């Protein structure tokens, strides 16, 4: 075999192994377009469907002409548009933070829910209400941030103890333990103090219901910063995926890269949880879906991540007194979990295992897609 043929063959192998359903750049940009289309359909559905189904013509009319006077306009602008918008932002924040977490920990099971971040944010909010007597929703956001940050650091530190570092099992168990502890303390406070429960449930139970855009504007700077930092760290995540030793040898500043990604994770989950309460599984599942589609390059994963995220939004019909996480009826919770179980089975550490062979797809721009 000639050297050239050999090189071509090897390149083909690498391309195939770097994985994903969509292998060529063209297919990936196409996938991105499809994802954006899905997002648009989801947004439309979120606006149209509800306890009062709106005709599509009137809705678009109200939306385009800023008509707030008619009934349709009231529903669209007052209720559904804020929810939908928050759903899009929260969804993309959670999806991106899940991808970052899975990249930083090289662990397919990393998710704000499993790693105790949600529980940390919720506990901090309860503390804010119970201990400091805070009643303003805007200050909860800060507490949710701090809680999410502290919980993620603690879980990672506990999970990374010992020789083999942060293995999936140790992280999952540390997250389980910390979550259980925080949830228990949270429910203890809520049971003891009814006034706290009354305020807290508006934050946690509401999920996407009854949020106005004020909350979104408040968290948007943090969220935007998180997304930017996350994108910026996508390249270093690819290097980290090779393992600490190789990454160091390649000249990557492993500690810095990890810290920057962790900062992005905290910014993203903090703002998402602060705006919409704890939502599970989006952060866990979507990166896997994205990885299955485009392979292991985190620049692509981030790009693809943006769009499908927003399918949280349709779940947020205002007629549903969502008692738990905001989910689209039957779908979200089950889907999320099933996906993980299925994805987990064939390869316990897809990120680690395949990332070793991952190469940036030819023609990919450093920042993946168009978000």
């Amino acid at each position, binding site marked *: 075999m000639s050297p050239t043929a050999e090189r071509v063959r090897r390149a083909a192998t690498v391309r195939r192994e770097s994985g994903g359903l969509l292998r060529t750049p063209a297919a990936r940009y196409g996938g991105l377009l499809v994802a954006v289309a899905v997002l648009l359909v989801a947004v439309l559905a979120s606006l149209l469907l509800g306890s009062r189904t709106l005709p599509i013509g009137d809705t678009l009319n109200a939306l385009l002409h800023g008509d707030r006077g008619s009934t349709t306009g009231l529903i669209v602008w007052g209720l559904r548009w804020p929810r939908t918008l928050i759903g899009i932002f929260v969804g993309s924040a959670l999806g991106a933070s899940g991808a970052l977490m899975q990249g930083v920990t090289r662990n397919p*099971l990393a998710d704000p*829910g*499993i790693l105790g971040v949600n529980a940390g944010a919720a506990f901090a909010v309860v503390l804010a209400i119970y201990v400091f007597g805070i009643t303003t929703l805007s200050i909860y956001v800060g507490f949710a941030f701090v809680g999410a940050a502290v919980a993620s650091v603690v879980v990672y530190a*506990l999970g990374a*103890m*010992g*020789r*083999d570092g942060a*293995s*999936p*099992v*140790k992280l*999952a*168990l*540390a997250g*389980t*333990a*910390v979550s*259980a*502890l925080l*949830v*228990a*303390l949270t*429910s*203890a406070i809520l*049971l*003891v103090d009814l006034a706290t429960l009354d305020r807290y449930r508006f934050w946690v139970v509401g999920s996407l219901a009854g949020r106005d855009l004020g909350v979104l504007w408040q968290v948007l700077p943090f969220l935007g910063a998180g997304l930017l930092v996350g994108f910026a760290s996508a390249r270093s995540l690819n290097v980290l995926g090779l393992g600490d030793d190789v990454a160091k040898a390649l000249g990557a500043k492993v500690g810095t890269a990890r810290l920057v990604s962790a900062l992005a994770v905290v910014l993203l989950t903090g703002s998402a949880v602060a705006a919409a309460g704890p939502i*599970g*599984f989006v952060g866990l599942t979507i990166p896997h879906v994205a990885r299955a589609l485009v392979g292991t390059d985190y620049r692509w994963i981030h790009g693809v991540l943006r769009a499908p995220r927003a399918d949280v939004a349709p779940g947020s019909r205002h007629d*549903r*007194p*969502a*008692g*738990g*996480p905001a*989910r689209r*009826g*039957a779908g*979200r*919770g*089950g889907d*999320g*979990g*099933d996906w*993980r*179980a299925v994805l*987990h*089975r064939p390869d*316990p550490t897809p990120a680690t295992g395949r990332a070793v062979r991952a190469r940036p797809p030819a023609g990919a721009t450093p920042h993946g897609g168009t978000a």
Partner: protein
Amino acid sequence: MTQLLVDALESDRPVRRTAFVVRLNRPGVSARFDRRSVLVSLGLLVVIVAALVAGVSIGVFPIPLSDVVPGILGVGSDDATFIVQNLRLPRALTGLMVGAAFGLSGAIFQTLARNPLASPDIIGVTAGASLAAVAAIVLAGASTGAIAGAAFAGGLGATLAVYALAYRRGVTGYRMVLVGVGLTAVGSSLTSWLLTKANLYDAQEAAIWLTGSLNNQGWEHVVPVGLALAVLIPATALLAPHLRCLQLGDDTAHGLGVKVETYRLSLLAAGVALASMATASAGPVAFVALIGPQIAKRLCRASGIALVPAALTGAALVLIADLIGRQLFAPTTLPVGVITAVVGAPFLLWLLAQANRSGREG
């Protein structure tokens, strides 16, 4: 004639006797008792009785210790008899039996998987049981008996799912734990979805139940778990010697003539049934199945997990945790699961740290 023989094991060595064997010749039964385990079990029994009496005695309407036994027997004053028989005794008995069932189930699972983390509350058995029970309540408005049946089906389903998903040329402990943590998350999110479908009253009840609670336990809660234990404890006792053989490893057990798969499956079924019945009765009381057997193991300083001390430790844990939950913020009663989680979570972390220090994969 039944001849009772007590002889020393290891009598050829000049060490302190640490175990003795009791043989009944006529039915042909023998049992080996570890001295320390027996003492620990007796001590735990004392603790349990004390906690039971305290649980009956302490409360908003205190019942003097002297009235506890008359109250239980129904010969005391009317007030005391009513409170003891209708309110506090069922609660204490449920706690006792639920704790024992969780402890026993945890011991079986941990021994079978040879991994302390593979207890039913971590690998999703109790989550599956809760999901099925909540589904039965919310969707079908099921009765107590049907709820217990649903819980068992749910626990069994979760176990089979974990086994199937973790199976890759045999099931290893850590893979099972990882899949179990995932399935637990699936179960709890499906459960919270069900709660959003329920009416407010049911949802509130279920939410408290889901943290593991002994509130409002009446005789209707005592009876199912009592019946289940009446069947399952003898069954487990019959299977226990085989469990000890399985502990030696599959090959050795095969060599000793044990039908490995048959007994493993029967033991697994018993463990699932115990955990599910306990869950159906008091909700998934967090971490009791995890820490009960581990505490018992450390108390007995045994290499393996002894079943009887594990069950007794579980019972003592739940009774004491319930006492704390009732008294800490009285008159508000914290669910017992909150207390066990606050105690159990650090213990789980400590177990992780231990596993790390000894260099095993944790």
